[in-house]
């Protein structure tokens, strides 16, 4: 069993989102969070 490296974790995260650019991960996650917040507001309002 090989221990997961930082690269492996980032790779796995990217694959979870369909293979997005690893360097863009923080921006993509940020965008998801913003979208979720907007959608929740829209659904309530």
């Amino acid at each position, binding site marked *: 069993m*090989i221990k997961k490296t930082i690269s492996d974790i980032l790779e796995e*995260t990217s694959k*979870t*989102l369909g293979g997005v650019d690893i360097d863009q991960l*923080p921006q993509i*996650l940020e965008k998801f969070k913003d*979208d979720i917040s907007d*959608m929740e507001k829209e*659904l309530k309002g």
Partner: protein
Amino acid sequence: MLSKVDLMKSEHFALDFFKKNGFSRQKCKKCGNNFWAQVARDFCQDASCISYEFIGNPTIPGKLKWKTIREKYLKFFADQGHTKVNRYPVVARWKPDTLFVGASIFDFMPWVLNGSAKPPANPLVIDQPSVRFGDIDNVGLGSGRHCTQFSMMAHHCFNSPKEIYWKEKTVGLCYDFFTKQLKLPGDELTFVENLWKGGGNAGPCFEVMTKGNEIATLVFMQFMQKPAGYVPMKMKVVDTGYGLERISWASQGTPTIYDCIYPKVIDFLKKEGRVKTYNKKVFEEFCKLSSVMNVEDINVEEQRKLLVKQISEKLGVTTDSILEQIYPYHHIYRVADHTKALCFILGDGIVPANIQEGYLARLLIRRGLHSLHRLGIDIELGCIVEKHIRELGDTYPEILERSDDILKMVEVEEEKYKSNIKNAHSAVKKFEDLLLRSGKKKFDKKSFVMLYESRGLDPDIVKEHLNMPADSVTTIDVREEIRKNLEKEEGQKHKFGDYKDEVVGFLSDLPVTEKLYYDDEKKLNGEATILKIFDNLVVLDKTIFYPRGGGAEPDVGNLEGSRVLDVENKNGVIVHTLDTVKGLQEGQIVGLQVDKKTREGITRHHTATHVVNTSSRRVLGEHVWQEGTKKDFDKAYLNVTHYEMPSVEQVKKIEKVANDIIKKKVKVIKSIMGRTEAERKYGFRIYQGGAVPGRDLRIVNIDGWDIEACGGLHIDNTSEIGRVLITKVDKPHDGVIRFIFRVGEAADKWELSRKELLNKCGKLLKVKPASVPTATGKLFVKWKLLRKKLEIKKQKDAKKMVKGMETKKVGTVDLLVKEIPGVGLKELQGVSKQLSTDNTFVALLGVGDKIHVLCSAGKNVGINAGLITSKICSDLGGKGGGSPTLGQGFGVNKSKLKAIVKKIKTELII
């Protein structure tokens, strides 16, 4: 300057040998060529002039097998003073203009023939396995004599600086070999006069024939081909070629050449395919007459039909019965031929792929599998390849050594093919529908090429599933088209800079720049004189700046206060691109300073590329060759040939093997060596970066680990690399794997940046770094769920909005023009969806901060929604447009809204 007529003058062919041995010059009554024979003959004995008269009536006694003939040949010429030279690989890595070795002379092109390198021995004898794809459609029951892979036995003599031997001895040796060693009666030989041309060289030649079988060619290469004619070469070369398989065929007299080369494989396929034994008389008659078939000159299919008809009439059997007998054999021969060729091609390091040599290997595998399928044989292709390997192993042990690799590649490729073939019918059907919709009535060449490139479907397979008529395109045409596309891509890749014509013009007058960077790769400063300035380009008499090349980025730095941004080598003249040339003038002596960080980074990454290349070969197999590289100061990539994505374990192992070598502090020795000596000492693995020009090669030797011909800058010891970190593995195209890696400080820096990146993600998600993938998954699911909910809500809202909106019937069209306050484009889209039918035209204007415009038109409406939207938006001071069925845009001028709505209604007659 000489013409073709000059080269064919009788003086080139009238030899004392012929006179002394009772030969006379005669003219063929069919082709008109002159030939020499000991008895009076009407025909020259070329296959196109007579049938294969040796079938069932061999000219060489003893039914000799190819291995026996090979041994006799090599021994005879060795006894006659020739040095035996080992075969070259069938992949011509030293020859920049060719993929495969097509003849033994390719081994010495262009470097020996142009005087850049010494021949490995002189005179020499060789058995050179060769590969020719130009004949692939002749294979099988085409001509019965063409093989994709064959052995060209040859003796060569390079007559420079002094003559060793020329025509008389060459013809004499040929005659003695056939008549004394193989006991072929001299009166069964003819020597046909002809002109040979190839690779820019030319010379008179004799084609040696016996009963319709060309068994050797003796070329006297002495001219260079120029556009206006021929000029003499400095070196006169005896270039012979003896067809090993053809000679064996002449001795065994079997119906086809294939029956004599690999009878065991043929028997195996006959048994597996339950192929009926043919009527000997009918089959031999067909094979004898097929001498005229050559795909270069005629349509083989048409010619085959003619032959069958001819035999049917002569022997009184139906054409159907003849075709039923010959077709299974056509496929048996094809499988046997292609699988033998694969042993050499894959064994010499080619991996099946979509481009270049790899494409041709794939083509052979797919054609072989297709033929097996036609024969109804359900076995793996590797099973037949293995039979060839066993047969070839004692003569070519290197193939036996690589058998695991060869068989694995065939297995992987077969799986890919089977998955493709499974989907072939639906893929062809979809493509046909696409063509029909775009108004095409025929399946043209472009379509065959596209289907091959997108789905990997060979034209033969496509044809089997086609419903629509196809253009009369052959497999050769499709391959040629693909080859041209590849060449186009290659041409674009190698385009030199973006220099203007006038710059290239001024460069041609300048002397070659003295290269100081090889003297001491660690020296970073120096002085030079400016020879020329043009725009921001500067040429010096000498330089320490390493130019872009061999995949390495150029040095950057400083030239007397100006920044050096780029450096390129144009035919030996090194051009420096500066940020400014202000204050510089021609003739000025200037100070040069190379940027240390960039130079060190590129140099370390370059040596690391060699290390990783060999590490990947050790881990993945001997088939691994470098396919491309790029070396920069902070990272590098290495493309290698390999048939599948390596596993995580394999990648880690490659990294470990590379780092072990780094830790061992291995010396990196750089030296200049003669080409022939380097090839003899280190083999053809030195050409990892492709063909290298010049008489002498710069050899970079990572002592005991990797040796390559390389013009790049390198460190002196592997320990200077620090460490290698493979940061990404990719597959740029099929059959090629890319390792992206970083070394030393660049690796540390990269690792730190990744750590920071992961920490940032963890903070955003409020979890520990190790939990980032799981938390991301949860976030993604939540996002998708909310999106779906919102979609449903919007649909409901739209339905509410639509209530009370009614369309008005004008002729056959239902029209609606509506202002809706406080909604955006998304809501308008929802409303439009609710209202749309084939007969509806809707113009919606959502009025908020600005005016959103959406028009949609059903397919029966006949109004262009895109054009109308554009007009409305323009009238409202905004922009818009779209397709005939949907237009979207916005306007800003609300004061005009009422007038515009009125105008639309009027124009649309509501």
